[in-house]
């Protein structure tokens, strides 16, 4: 039986159920946090054991390849860090739903893991909905007006996006007669008869459905409001894991499903190129005037999705491994930033940037970590964010004579614009005067997750080979 192939997902499901059951019995909810975090080791180990395989499971529904394993490890790492850093926040703000929080995060991660591995459209959709449902609920967990509104916005807009996605999938199914991604590619390249507008329409609708997930413009409208209203750990999770999963699926669908005939390749390469340019520009421009740190990070995330889309537009293997490297680095930096925000807002109870004034004097280590993460997001050496941008832009310059040079120049200029708002936050923290002089305490697990994030950002900036070799190996998709 193919138990081994689906063991990471199975063990994840078991872990989630265990947490739900324990929630009924156990009084001290902190044990649930520990169980969830420690329990993640099991799916992690099982996922690592699948490295190097290149086969399909469950009749072609799931792919077991380096690509899927890389993303599974990424999601598990992100989930672990979010769980580790969120205990104080959950304890103080969501008193009666603590057990449910951990269970839902685990279930959402399960959905994302399935998304990265799925090779068949219906499975992709089901996985998307699984993780989405959990996140819709999680967004509304604070039960205040903003949180409920954000949950509602998320579910409604998410529903529309899912509908668009399904519509696109139906069209493609109708044209090719199969929902299996490999089968789709064969059907398209088999005859020129499928070179018709309907296929392009289906492709565009599918792209639109996932563009919602990654926050590409103009499907990004939900992001700032949902990010602002949701509990900050959920926002952190959304901003990295959900986005990474979106990219994983886009890469798989477009390389495996629509990868084959040259003309199709060029079509969606251009589509993503334009999407990238619009996304990064809109994201950066709108971030400049933000005064709320969570909204600013939301718009910054939109711009980062734009840079990542450059890697998709490159439409080559270097682009894939570039995206995977960038996603990891972006996850580390963004998580670091959000966890620092969690710690600080735990104390000062505010998400306004102006209240971060003089943080360097009140909580120097937190301020420095947040600054390092923001510098990584800007893409300045010697942080890993610079290497991430380097590999993605490198990949974009490969095809043709100058490749997508216009896009790369566009993206580098955008990075300059982005520096303005990232450094605005840094400036407020370092140069401003503190409102009050109490320190900002934080728990041990939160500090540990911050150390991991910052160390990752700095080490990978100086010695990126550590991650690059895995990213290169992971750009292997089962056809």
């Amino acid at each position, binding site marked *: 039986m193919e138990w081994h192939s689906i063991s990471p997902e199975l063990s994840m499901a078991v872990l989630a159920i265990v947490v739900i059951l324990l929630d009924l019995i156990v009084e001290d909810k902190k044990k649930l946090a520990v169980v969830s975090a420690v329990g993640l080791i099991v799916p992690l180990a099982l996922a690592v054991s699948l490295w190097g395989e290149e086969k399909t499971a469950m009749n072609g529904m799931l792919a077991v390849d380096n690509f899927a394993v890389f993303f599974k490890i990424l999601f598990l790492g992100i989930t672990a860090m979010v769980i580790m850093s969120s205990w104080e926040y959950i304890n103080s703000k969501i008193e009666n739903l603590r057990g449910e929080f951990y269970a839902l995060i685990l279930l959402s991660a399960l959905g994302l893991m399935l998304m990265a591995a799925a090779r068949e459209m219906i499975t992709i959709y089901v996985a998307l909905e699984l993780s989405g449902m959990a996140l819709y609920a999680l967004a509304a967990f604070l039960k205040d007006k903003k949180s409920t509104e954000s949950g509602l916005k998320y579910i409604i807009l998410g529903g529309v996006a899912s509908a668009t996605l399904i519509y696109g999938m139906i069209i493609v199914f109708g044209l090719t007669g199969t929902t299996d991604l490999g089968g789709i590619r064969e059907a398209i390249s088999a005859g020129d008869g499928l070179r018709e507008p309907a296929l392009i329409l289906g492709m565009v609708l599918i792209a639109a459905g996932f563009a919602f997930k990654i926050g590409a413009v103009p499907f990004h409208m939900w992001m700032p409001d949902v990010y602002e209203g949701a509990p900050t750990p959920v926002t952190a999770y959304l901003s990295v894991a959900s986005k990474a999963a979106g990219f994983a699926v886009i890469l798989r669908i477009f390389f495996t499903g629509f990868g084959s005939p040259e003309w199709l390749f060029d079509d969606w390469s251009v589509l993503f190129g334009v999407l990238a340019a619009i996304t990064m520009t809109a994201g950066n421009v709108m971030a400049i005037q933000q005064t709320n740190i969570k909204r600013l990070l939301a718009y910054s995330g939109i711009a980062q999705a734009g840079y990542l889309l450059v890697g998709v537009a490159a439409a080559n293997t270097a682009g894939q491994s570039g995206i995977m490297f960038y996603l990891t680095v972006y996850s580390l930096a963004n998580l670091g930033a959000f966890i620092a925000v969690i710690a600080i807002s735990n104390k000062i109870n505010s998400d306004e940037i102006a209240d971060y004034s003089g943080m360097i004097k009140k909580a120097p280590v937190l301020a420095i970590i947040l600054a390092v993460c923001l510098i990584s997001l800007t893409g*300045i050496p010697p942080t890993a964010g610079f290497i991430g941008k380097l*590999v993605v832009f490198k990949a974009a310059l490969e095809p043709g004579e100058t490749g997508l040079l216009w896009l790369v120049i566009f993206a580098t200029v955008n990075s300059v614009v982005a520096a303005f708002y990232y450094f605005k936050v840094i400036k407020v923290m370092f140069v401003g005067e503190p409102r009050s002089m109490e320190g900002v305490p934080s728990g041990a697990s939160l500090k540990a997750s911050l150390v991991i994030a910052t160390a990752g950002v700095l080490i990978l900036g100086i010695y990126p080979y550590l991650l690059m070799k895995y990213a290169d190996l992971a750009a292997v998709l089962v056809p």
Partner: protein
Amino acid sequence: MNEFFEDINILSIILFLPVIGAIMIAILQITDKGLKQVAALFTGVTFLLAILMFIGFEKSDGGLQFIERYTWIDSIKAEYFLGVDGLSAPLFLLTTFLGFLCVFISWNIKDRVREYFVWLLILQFSIMGVFVAQDFLLFFIFWEIELIPMYFLISIWGTKPPLGRREYSAVKYLLYTLLGSAGLLAGILVAYFQADGSTWAMMDVTNPETGQIIKGLPSYVAGLTIGMQTLIFFLIFFCFCVKLPMFPFHTWLPDAHTDAPTAGSVMLAGVLIKMGGYGMLRLLGIAPDVADKYAWLLILLGIIGVLYGAAATLRQTDLKRLIAYSSVSHMGYVLLGIFALQQVSVTGAALQLLSHGVVTGLLFAMVGVVYDKTHERRIPYLGGLAKQMPIACVVFTIAGMASLGLPLTSGFAAEFLIFTGSYNSDVTPWMHVYTILGIVGIVLTAGYILWMIQRAFYHEPKSQFDHLSDATVMERFVIFSLVASIMWIGIRPHYFTDLIDNSLSAIESIKGVLGS
């Protein structure tokens, strides 16, 4: 001795000493005075080692020396490649020298001392790295690293409103430089791909044992179409032109220089803007035909910079801003010298980089001395300081004379070489006109320098300055060392020009560009 230095990787040692110093300053729990002493210690040792390296440098060999070449990121063939030649060795020495002096200039900082010296040392590390990096990616990374310490130095310890706008100037500096770097990165990447991603090296290096030449990126670029060469040339040189700065991308400089703390201004004007000039020198041969074709444009903008800069300087009433604008003017000569594409004028431009670094470093240090005592930077409110501060007055005058190119000072040596070389150039039919306009710039320089010195130090002494002391022992140490350097370069310029000359001849691609 050279083999010994190469074996122990002297360049990396010198390069990373400030970083270790910065880490020590960040974590050691000692008094502020102790922190300053640690900073002085580390920069002092760095300077000492740099002098030793410079003495050990083989003057007659124009190629790269003290080479360190290790694989860094194998998958993209990026290397940790360091080396010095005649172009970079003087500037490297200058960086360590000014870095050492800046610690003493900053001795009176009282606010957030620990962070200040951490940033100062990291800044020095980054600038030194730019001068010795021979791998494009490494070069770019060092180029970018200096942004962050400079941003913090200006925005935290700079001049507060209403006299200055430190936060505005810091952000302006950041954005301008990042924009330039965007061009540099794009240019490097395009060149890298045209070379099929085989190397990031900035120069061809001949293996001394086998005699085999390991090609660098510029050699690959030379084989591309003229359109591609033009693209790469302008993308890369845009960055250097913003840094130098060249008119019309110079508007960041007056704000950044004026609002930075004194040591920040010394580092900025002394070495940071030399990075732009150095980049131009190093990569002059990257697209020889393009350089030849568009030299007229860069010379024109250079001369406009000289004259416009000088004219703007004449209007300044803030002492620091005046010197900042004078930097714009003097960097125009560098452009004239480089793009006249004559061996003599390029050597003069390289010497001008060195000379201007010392001279402007001294000028800003003097402004710091005057401001520390009088708390007044506005020229109309100064006056007659020669009575209260004779030493400061004399040194300021010497610095001013060097700035306007009085013979026996380094300024004269550099400018003379530039003008001699450019007058003989045939890169554009208007060369004689440009050269003469450049010389007119000298006259304007004399105008604002003499006017400034007269207004600030002569005329009637003011009673409110009567209680002021002259330069302290520490300040005298700093300013006398700088005066000595100016004199030494001015009286024996051949010590440096020989180095520069040999290296220019050794770089094949540059030799191809230059005339006689």
